[in-house]
């Protein structure tokens, strides 16, 4: 609406595996926006509430965050967490995850299809689940600002591939957010740290979160944050540590108590909660205790000394060392050249992680300490807020800052023999592009198929399939004569765009994209939230905003009413009543009394009812000339609704 673009707030969102946060730039400082429960962290848990079996789909409600936590134990078949692990993935990618996580996938998913998760009697794509989390964060921000929020920066693991990025952007769109930029999490963290000082030199960010690991090497120079190399593992995080502890506990329970809990989702959830608490305690305590009541009334009690814990998780932690070394090798730097190291992600609280980082980057040997001043759970969201401010262009603090990020994976196309021809190397600064030329192999051929891949392996079968493109409409020519120029462009979000042109004829070749694990635009449209679900934990702010929007809509329509021919058909008394109701609504609309606004909308609605009917009559009689009743009503439904509908087009007054 008439909101001033320059003052519109852009929020920064960390959409995490375990927790999600929303932050924004308050003056020259990024701050996290708390939820209704006062907590900065919104657990990335989504639950479908239990509703009567005969309830309409529209009455189903979804709960997000802390309030969904209970559902994990009470109705585990209606709740989901760690959905980030499934973003942009296919069935064959997630077999390992399925053994460890209680994801209930739909039974009929075909290979290559986007995953669907069952919650109770319904199914959701990972993007939709993420959209519920995003919408919760959006609402938290709206409640905090008392104004609508429509634009956001969302962070993703640096090592996310194209499909995972697309899935994240789709989730934003479903949640009603225009995603201005996807920012890599370690880079965001560097931004959050680099704000206060004009730093120069090489820094490394070690980001070990709930489900993903990233490492990035950056060069700072006069406000420019230039990523020179990044590496990581999108399936390595605190979750893996939890799963190890869980597996040990399950085995012990089976051996000592003769109970196999593996088939009991609620018991597994309770046990998972206990081992997570033990893990957290072990970051500060020399040992932790597990004490759980088993279904048969027995107790499983276990003391875990820190040394045992560290031995157990050593293989998981060791998997972070390789990417660190590879990133330094790719950047052409040695550990001693890294001047500062930033720790990000909850898992970096584990002392054994800090020991490993210290060794890999030779910190204490050089008298250095890692940076942990900012809360490792919040630093990514804070950085996202900084990037949001850069894009909004409304802060002098961020005016001089610029992020130059890289693509984490090489882009290639499948060539003869199933080998990959690399066209954009990993760690290329984005946006990056490559132009390739293709031709035909058969006389008169009008289609050329191109298979685009992402990854570092030699064979197409070992790389990640991004998409298959069909170049169509090539003018029929002798084999080898067409020269089709295909331009591959990785944008600033790390997402691929492709365009093609036949050079001899100058014809713009059509491209048909079949994303390997993506949703089409049309599919995303159908998944936009708010079509069902009125669930709300922070009702008031949201409803006030909606009531104001409703008031705005009806006022605009009523203000246009005198120009309509039907206006002449109503009495002076009615016109005066409409006028009074309009003035009243204009006044209360700016105040914060929700009920007053709603009542005023209802009054104006009543006052204009006769006029609305006259207007409908006029529209119907106009549309009916020379037509059947059926086609006229079809036309009405299809034609410009603003012209034929009542001023407050079918807007229903809400009653408590």
């Amino acid at each position: 609406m008439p909101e001033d673009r320059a003052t519109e707030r852009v929020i920064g969102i960390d959409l995490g595996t375990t927790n999600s946060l929303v932050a924004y730039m308050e003056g020259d400082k990024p701050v996290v926006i708390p939820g209704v429960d006062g907590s900065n962290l919104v657990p990335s848990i989504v639950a479908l509430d239990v509703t009567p079996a005969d309830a309409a789909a529209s009455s189903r409600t979804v709960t997000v965050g802390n309030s969904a936590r209970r559902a994990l134990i009470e109705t585990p078949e209606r709740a989901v967490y760690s959905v980030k692990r499934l973003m942009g993935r296919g069935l064959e990618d997630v077999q390992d995850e399925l053994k460890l996580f209680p994801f209930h996938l739909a039974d009929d998913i075909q290979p290559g299809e986007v995953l669907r998760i069952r919650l109770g009697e319904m199914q959701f794509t990972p993007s939709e689940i993420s959209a519920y989390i995003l919408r919760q964060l959006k609402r938290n921000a709206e409640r905090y600002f008392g104004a609508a929020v429509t634009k956001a920066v969302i962070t993703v693991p640096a090592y996310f591939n194209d499909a995972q990025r697309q899935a994240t952007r789709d989730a934003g769109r479903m949640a009603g957010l225009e995603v201005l930029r996807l920012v890599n999490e370690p880079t965001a963290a560097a931004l959050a740290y680099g704000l206060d000082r004009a730093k120069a030199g090489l820094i490394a960010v070690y980001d070990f979160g709930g489900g993903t690991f990233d490492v990035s090497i950056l060069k700072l120079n006069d406000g420019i944050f230039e990523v020179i190399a990044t590496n990581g593992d999108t399936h390595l995080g605190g979750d893996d540590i939890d799963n190890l502890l869980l597996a040990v506990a399950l085995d012990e329970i089976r051996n000592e108590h003769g109970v196999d809990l593996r088939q009991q989702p609620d018991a597994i959830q309770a046990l998972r909660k206990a081992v997570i608490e033990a893990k957290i305690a072990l970051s500060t305590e020399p040992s932790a205790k597990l004490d759980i009541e088993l279904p048969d009334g027995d107790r499983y009690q276990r003391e875990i000394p820190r040394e045992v814990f560290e031995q157990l998780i050593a293989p998981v932690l060791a998997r972070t060392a390789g990417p660190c070394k590879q990133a330094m090798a790719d950047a052409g730097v040695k550990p001693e050249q890294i001047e500062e190291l930033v720790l990000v992600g909850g898992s970096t609280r584990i002392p054994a992680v800090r020991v490993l980082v210290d060794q890999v980057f030779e910190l204490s040997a050089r008298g250095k300490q890692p940076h942990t001043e900012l809360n490792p759970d919040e630093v990514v969201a804070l950085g996202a807020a900084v990037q949001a401010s850069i894009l909004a262009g409304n802060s002098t603090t961020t005016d001089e800052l610029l992020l130059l990020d890289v693509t984490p994976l090489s882009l290639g196309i499948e060539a003869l023999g199933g080998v990959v021809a690399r066209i954009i190397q990993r760690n290329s600064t984005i946006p990056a592009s490559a132009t390739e030329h293709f031709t035909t192999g058969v006389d008169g051929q009008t289609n050329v198929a191109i298979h685009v891949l992402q990854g570092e392996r030699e064979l197409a079968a070992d790389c990640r399939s991004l998409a298959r493109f069909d170049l169509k409409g090539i003018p029929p020519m002798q084999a080898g004569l067409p020269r089709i120029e295909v331009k591959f462009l990785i944008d600033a979000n790390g997402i691929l765009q492709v365009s093609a042109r036949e050079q001899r004829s100058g014809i713009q070749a059509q491209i048909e994209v079949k994303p390997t694990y993506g949703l089409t635009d049309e599919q995303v449209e159908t998944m936009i939230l708010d079509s069902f679900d009125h669930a709300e934990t922070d009702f008031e702010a949201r409803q006030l905003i909606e009531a104001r929007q409703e008031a705005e809509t009806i006022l605009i329509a009523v203000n246009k009413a005198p120009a309509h021919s039907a206006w002449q058909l109503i009495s002076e008394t009615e016109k005066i009543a409409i006028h009074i109701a309009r003035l009243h609504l204009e006044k209360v609309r700016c105040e914060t009394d929700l009920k007053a606004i709603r009542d005023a909308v209802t009054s104006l609605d009543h006052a204009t009812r006769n006029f609305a009917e006259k207007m409908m009559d006029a529209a119907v009689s106009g549309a009916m000339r020379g037509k059947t009743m059926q086609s006229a009503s079809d036309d009405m439904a299809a034609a410009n609704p603003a012209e034929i509908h009542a001023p407050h087009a079918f807007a229903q007054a809400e009653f408590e």
Partner: protein
Amino acid sequence: MTSVVTTSAPAACWACRAALGGSPLLCAACGKVQPAAGIDYFQVFGSVVGFERRLTIDTAALEREFHRLSRRLHPDRFARATAQEQEWSLAATALLNDAYRTLRELVQRTEYLLKLEGFEIGEEFAGKNKTAKRQPPADLLEEVFELNMQLEEMRMNRKMGESDPALHSELTAVSLRFESELAKLDNNLVEKGAAWDAGAAAGDSAGRATAAKDMAAQLDRRRYLRNLVRDVNEALSTDKES
């Protein structure tokens, strides 16, 4: 077929009509981003490499110009601009990044220049009909033949679960020798690049053409050696593991 690129970039800013100097991606007068069509990498960094396509480059100056242009062209600066300017910003920044990546490395810079000058360089990718030309240079024919025999022998050994230490050290020596020849080739490339630049300064187009031809030959040899070293090192590393 590679055609010589002729440029048709507009000489004036679309917004303020001022003449475009420095970088053709950015109007120095009004700061507006310009459409990037038909601009080559050397033109992007015209103020650093000169419009005569110089090969001897001050890489620190190149980086400064990269940062300066990034600040002005990056899509982050156009989040609130018109869709058209956003599109130009994306294309211009992609071109800037591609240009910087190519020009800052000697070999890539030289290869790119020679492509612009109409030489066929490297393995052109042509759909599924990719043809890899791996003809050894004439003077290396014999040596390569023997090397391939040795590599094959090593592979056979590995299959049998054996390792021949003499063969291993022999191949290690070969790898080192090729590595040092590669370093020599890079030095040559720098010299030839200087000859190319001098030819431009003196208006000596014949000298330039000779330098270009020399460089193209050097690069072919370099690519061949590079692949050879890679194969040998690969074989050596798997040999060690067994």
